[in-house]
């Protein structure tokens, strides 16, 4: 057998050392990402939209338009007009410029609130999962309480309280705080469940045996192993937060005009149905595309989850529950993405999960 292998190696003129090159988990993840064209396309469109939004001052300067300059003689110019590529609104302001500046606000709120709720959710999830007992019971009670209140109303109350506290229209910061402090419950549940199973792993036991503190075990040893769950949660959270921000602004409790956000642009354009259809269509399309792409990216995850993909399914179901409460729905296919379990470090090429499709 050995001689045969050697013969093959000699024949191929390859050094045996190079044949057995091993890849790190990150390398394998990146390799899989390179072959997942749909995710790559989605990711690049997100990057383009985000970059354009945050480079809004530059873009508007180049085009020579302004999101705030009103032109009474140029109201309701249709898309495709000279200078105003996306047309103008009821006050003659450039629609494209406003969309880009609005994207800045909407994306900033979604990214920051997702980061905030993720930080709270992951920290609480690891702590409750690791310690259990009274802490677990208390956090679970808090989650049960928070999730029983219709989330939309909770958001409305918090944003109206924050608004009256600061005696100013709700700024993006108050919205970020409100959304961040409400959105963590789903993440906590998911992370807690995952931590419960990680807690029993050998590496946790060996870390404890060499005298690592609980905090070190939780945040140095267990946290990196939760990264796949965190990435899915983050992507889906960002998508849903864009929707929530839009809904809040639509109801008049989000970002206040004249500061544009995709939600309040939609809300304002309601009045001008007949005169400017594009004012309704463009912000809606942008929200839709951005959310869809984030959700799409949430399906890609770098490391393998539980062998049967149940974790992903649970994550999506939990997320779905949270969203349903505010009347915005999000459900994804429970099928794990291609290659979920194929790159098992110890059984390369083995496909052990029922639903996964291994690239041949």
């Amino acid at each position, binding site marked *: 057998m050995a001689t045969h292998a050697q013969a093959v190696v000699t024949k191929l003129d390859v050094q045996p050392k190079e044949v057995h090159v091993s890849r790190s988990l990150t390398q394998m993840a990146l390799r899989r990402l390179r072959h997942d064209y749909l995710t790559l396309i989605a990711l690049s469109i997100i990057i383009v939209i985000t970059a354009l939004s945050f480079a809004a001052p530059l873009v508007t300067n180049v085009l020579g338009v302004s999101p705030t300059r009103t032109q009474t003689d140029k109201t309701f110019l249709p898309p495709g007009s000279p200078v105003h590529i996306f047309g103008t609104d009821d006050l003659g302001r450039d629609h494209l410029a406003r969309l880009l500046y609005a994207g800045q606000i909407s994306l900033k709120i979604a990214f920051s609130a997702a980061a905030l709720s993720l930080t709270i959710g992951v920290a609480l999830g690891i702590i409750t999962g690791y310690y259990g007992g009274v802490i677990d019971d208390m956090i679970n009670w808090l989650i049960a309480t928070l999730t029983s209140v219709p989330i939309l*109303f909770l958001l409305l*109350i918090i944003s109206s309280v924050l608004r009256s506290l600061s005696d100013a229209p709700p700024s993006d910061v108050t919205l970020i705080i409100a959304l961040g402090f409400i959105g963590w419950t789903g993440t906590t549940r998911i992370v807690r469940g995952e931590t419960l199973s990680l807690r029993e792993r050998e590496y946790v036991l060996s870390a404890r045996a060499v005298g690592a503190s609980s905090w070190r075990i939780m945040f140095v040893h267990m946290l990196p192993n939760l990264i796949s769950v965190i990435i899915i949660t983050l992507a889906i959270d960002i998508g849903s937060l864009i*929707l929530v921000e839009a*809904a809040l602004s*639509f109801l008049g409790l989000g970002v206040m005009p004249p500061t544009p956000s995709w939600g309040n642009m939609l809300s304002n354009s309601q009045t001008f149905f007949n005169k400017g259809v594009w004012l309704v269509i463009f912000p809606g399309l942008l929200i839709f595309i951005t959310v869809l792409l984030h959700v799409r990216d949430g399906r890609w995850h770098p490391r393998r989850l539980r062998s049967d993909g149940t974790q992903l399914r649970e994550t999506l179901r939990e997320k779905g529950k949270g969203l*349903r409460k505010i*009347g915005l729905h999000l459900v994804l*296919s429970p099928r794990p993405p291609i290659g979920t379990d194929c790159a098992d470090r110890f059984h390369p090429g083995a496909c052990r999960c029922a639903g996964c499709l291994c690239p041949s």
Partner: protein
Amino acid sequence: MVKYVLRRLIQAIPTLFGITVLVYLLMSLAPGGPAKALTFSANTTPQQVARVEAALGLNDPLPIQYLRWLLGDDWMRWDTDGDNIADASFILPLDADGDGVNEAPGTRQGIIRGDFGRSFFYRRPVSEMIGERVAATLELGLSALTFALLIGVPIGIFAAVRKGGAFDNVTRVAAVVTNAIPNFWIGLILILIFGSALGWLPMGGRADNPVAQCLVPNAPADLCHYPYIYERLEYLILPTFVLGMGAVAVWSRFMRASMLEVINQDYMRTAKAKGLSNRNVWFGHGARNAMIPLATFLGPAITGLLSGAAITETIFSWPGLGRFGVQAVTSQDYPVVMAVVIVGAVSTILGFILSDILYAIIDPRIRFD
């Protein structure tokens, strides 16, 4: 079973308590508060504001205010000799404002006895106003749920039996797409097309004689025949579609997953082996079993449609609870906001318990102990 239901109900008490504390604390954080809202007039003197505050009990410590809201104040300060001046009290002082005259007896019953106070804005009892709006919300919620079930369940079944086929893929993409679209945007576009451009359907509102009236016993026959029913249904079509659209996606994916679990069971193979037609196997044996887990989903879905309808109701000016709540938040009508939130929370909790019970009734294999 009874024991289980009782236990679930008892478990719900701390949650409900938490909700009332949370909502009350949040609302009391808002500065200005009810007194400012009630005395919003340029020529209100500070003395008048102070009197209103004393009358509303806003000078009492927060826990006492909370207790009064929760349990009422007719047991805190009451009248024994019928002169409408309190002469016995518990917790509260008899003469709260220190003017030498005892206060009037407490009249509030607290939310626990269904007294949500009076709306600041409309000056009417909140429970009465909620009662007027429940029917509209129920009508919209139930029609959206029916729509979602009628469309979503068959889609799920067909997607599962032809797994990986064109229909499966198309509906999967459609489900994801549906859920990424803000539903108020779809609402706006539909109003634009069917209400404004084509003029086929009303742009919003609810008919004067709503459909729900025909469902009650002894409904007036002349109101419930074709042209009138049609007129009322017209108002329901767009909101039902917008509210139910997301639910269709949810139900179809859920049904598909559930059906896929059933489809590989032995009894399905047996049914096929004994020569039953595909239709009989899928619907008679498969779908019936696959629909059992849907029961767990039904309770939360019902409450989700009821409380999640705020946006849809706002777009279509549907006079329901959700829109009422949103308006109350913007006009800082605290009693109404708290009432709507409590009603939503209670219905959510009850919905979960209800779906568990339903589950046990439909599937006798489930045992609770």
